[in-house]
């Protein structure tokens, strides 16, 4: 079975939630829509306090090509535009607060019916951008940018990422099982945009039911590939490498090796946008972990407070950590008063015994991190440099090639927070280069 070099095998823990069918989270009375839910240039709110909005209405205007708008998750009134904690950056960020009117009325003309296969490439890209679609696996890079590579980067490979290699999470798995058509149709749209006549949907072998169903439903030009179960199988560069043997060059992008990768959920959103004009206002999220009473897979509007979502799942149970995303790359939160975002693939609540809060000790040079690193780096050296803040030396030791997958840190017997050191070193390096540019 196809895979990549390196990686780790953390306990999968998917049985907590993988067999729970998707349930819709009920309409809430208030939504907190963060303006910046994508990676790239900022966007500017175009509504003001007191404005009436309807479901799917545009709330912000993207400033630049690598930027997307956000949309009203329901109909109601803009209560205020203020700042709240951003779950990814941890900083205060602009947020549009909407009080729902309970009618949940669509904006004029939505949803519409049109045939994406009679639309031009530009029309499709436009539909995707104006629907605010970003990578829903967690990276939140604007999808229309990924689907418009420059002319000097010919694309011959389109991969739909259904690996879902993060432990605990099952949102993509449920989507593949319950709505495979949306994914496959969205894949066809992306193929049309890229001018390709075939695509591959890659799924880790621990989801045999999804693989079977997709193979049953997929047209001949979409191949379903089962991948070895190994973390981080779904990391973009590792996924491309597993399927094509190509290596995205250091500092490069997938398009440098002729590849484009989209998450399965993103493909479904692409279909909704192109065929029905529906913007990205809701997503599937796994609310799971032993720290939540009833793990569920929910269809939830972007902007719903996590506290409400957790209450819907029976509340907390000895919660020690609340994480946006999976246990390997997710971001720990200090409050429940933050909203679900476009990239929130999971809300994971861990108890103290499920997580790791012990102190770290000196590196014993066991080399386990070197074996685990899918990027071929020496994480132990980076961690030692991190302790001393020596970012220049770390850059020489390939700091910037680190994808922060967490494999090294997972296996480290001395429990060294290597990813933390890497993030710290990268921040130091960024700060220094910003300073030298400013000077």
């Amino acid at each position, binding site marked *: 079975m196809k895979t990549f070099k390196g990686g780790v095998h953390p306990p999968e823990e998917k049985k907590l939630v993988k067999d729970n069918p998707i349930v819709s989270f009920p309409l*809430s009375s208030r939504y907190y829509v963060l303006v910046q839910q994508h990676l790239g240039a900022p966007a500017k709110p175009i509504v003001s306090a007191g404005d009436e909005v309807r479901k799917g209405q545009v709330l912000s205007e993207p400033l630049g090509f690598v930027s997307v708008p956000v949309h009203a998750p329901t109909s109601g009134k803009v209560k205020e535009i203020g700042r709240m904690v951003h779950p990814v950056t941890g900083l205060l960020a602009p947020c549009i607060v909407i009080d729902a009117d309970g009618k949940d009325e669509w904006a004029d003309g939505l949803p519409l019916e049109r045939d994406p296969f009679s639309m031009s490439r530009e029309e499709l890209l436009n539909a995707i951008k104006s629907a605010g679609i970003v990578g829903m696996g967690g990276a939140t890079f604007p999808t229309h940018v990924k689907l418009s590579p420059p002319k000097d980067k010919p694309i011959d490979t389109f991969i739909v990422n259904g690996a879902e290699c993060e432990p605990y999470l099952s949102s993509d798995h449920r989507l593949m099982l319950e709505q495979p058509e949306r994914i496959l149709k969205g894949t066809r749209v992306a193929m049309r945009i890229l001018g390709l006549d075939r695509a591959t949907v890659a799924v880790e072998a621990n989801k045999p039911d999804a693989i079977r169903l997709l193979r049953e439903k997929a047209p001949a030009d979409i191949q379903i590939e089962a991948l070895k179960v190994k973390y981080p199988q779904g990391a973009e560069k590792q996924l491309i490498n597993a399927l094509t043997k190509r290596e995205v060059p250091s500092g490069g992008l997938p398009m440098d090796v002729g590849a484009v990768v989209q998450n399965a959920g993103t493909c479904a959103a692409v279909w909704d946008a192109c065929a029905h004009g529906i913007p990205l206002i809701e997503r599937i999220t796994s609310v799971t972990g032993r720290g939540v009473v009833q793990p569920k897979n929910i269809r939830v509007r972007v902007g719903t407070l996590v506290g409400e979502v957790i209450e819907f799942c029976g509340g907390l149970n000895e919660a020690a*950590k*609340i994480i946006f995303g999976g246990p390997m790359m*997710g971001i720990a939160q200090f409050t*429940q*008063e933050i909203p679900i975002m476009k990239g929130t693939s999971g809300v994971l609540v861990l108890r103290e015994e499920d997580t790791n809060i012990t102190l770290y*000790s000196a590196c014993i040079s066991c080399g386990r991190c070197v074996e685990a690193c899918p990027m*071929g780096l020496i994480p132990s050296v980076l961690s030692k440099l991190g302790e001393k803040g020596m970012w220049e030396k770390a850059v020489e030791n390939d700091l910037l090639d680190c994808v922060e997958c967490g494999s090294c840190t997972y296996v480290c017997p001395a*429990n060294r927070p290597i990813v933390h050191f890497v993030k710290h070193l990268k921040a130091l390096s960024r700060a220094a280069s910003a300073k030298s540019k400013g000077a």
Partner: protein
Amino acid sequence: MKNVPASNPAHDPAKGQTAKLSVYVSSSPHVHTPEDVPWIMRQVVYALIPGALVGVYFFGIPAIKVIAVAVASCVAMEALWQKLTGSPLTINDGSAALTGLLLAMNLPSGAPWWLVVIGSFVAIIIAKQIFGGIGNNPFNPALVGRVFLLISFPVAMTTWPEPRSFFTQAADATTGATPLGALKTAIFEHGTIGAAPEMNLMDPFLGNVGGSLGEISALALLLGGVYLIARKIITWHIPVTYVGTVVVITGIFWLINPDGYANPVFHLVAGGLMLGAFFMATDMVTSPITNTGKIIFAVGCGVITVVIRLWGGYPEGVSFAILIMNAFVPLINSATKPAKFGAVR
């Protein structure tokens, strides 16, 4: 722009657990393998048990004493040092106890208690703590302790009690030579290997020979080594390459001149090669990180071991070989970096 108090009229935080929420916040990943440093140290101790038991069987109560004194004094030295210097206590990581056990395995069973304590002092204080404690020592602490004793107390360190069954131990145990010692003497006196290697090779394989209390049974050490590889504590690279290098080089000389050189199987089972290759050279802190580096390191260990055994003043060269190669580890590490993903070739 003012800060939005994130609350919902329909969702009263005071009613839920929100108000008293207290959680940990740290960088990812949030899960961790249970295989921590104490776990690794425990596995190595388990793997040493067969070799130690064979030592106790053939050398009796004195072997138990040496092991007990070495382990206790190593742990005590580390605790004392950390108390005196005000540094965090690390004896719970198991590394000091393991160093004590390894030191004992490398000593003659008749070693007096003070000799063992001096060895522990050198191993823990000089070789480990002076350099900053676990993870920072360039040389294998147990071997530094052993070689210090060998050079400083050559008589006590080369007085080898004869192996006897545990149940027939006599109070006035006789002493004899190790197989490698007998070989060296024969070559020195007659210019040929004489009768030394004609001994039944089953004896050093099972442990019925003179030697350090933990090195005598190749079989018991091999069992432990296989356990370590199966448990993924060590990889095959160092032990297989080390042993292979010794067998190949001694084999070449034996083929050329079987009267002047012992056969490679003798070199394999006699002396400290098995203990060194599986347990001493594989010490994580003092061996290279990458598999390529481990192979280079082990070839070096093998070559130096053979050079000392065949032409050196000492009959045995495993300890010296490993310590010398320890010094090359930083160099080997920087010369054998793994292939970076996406490196521009």
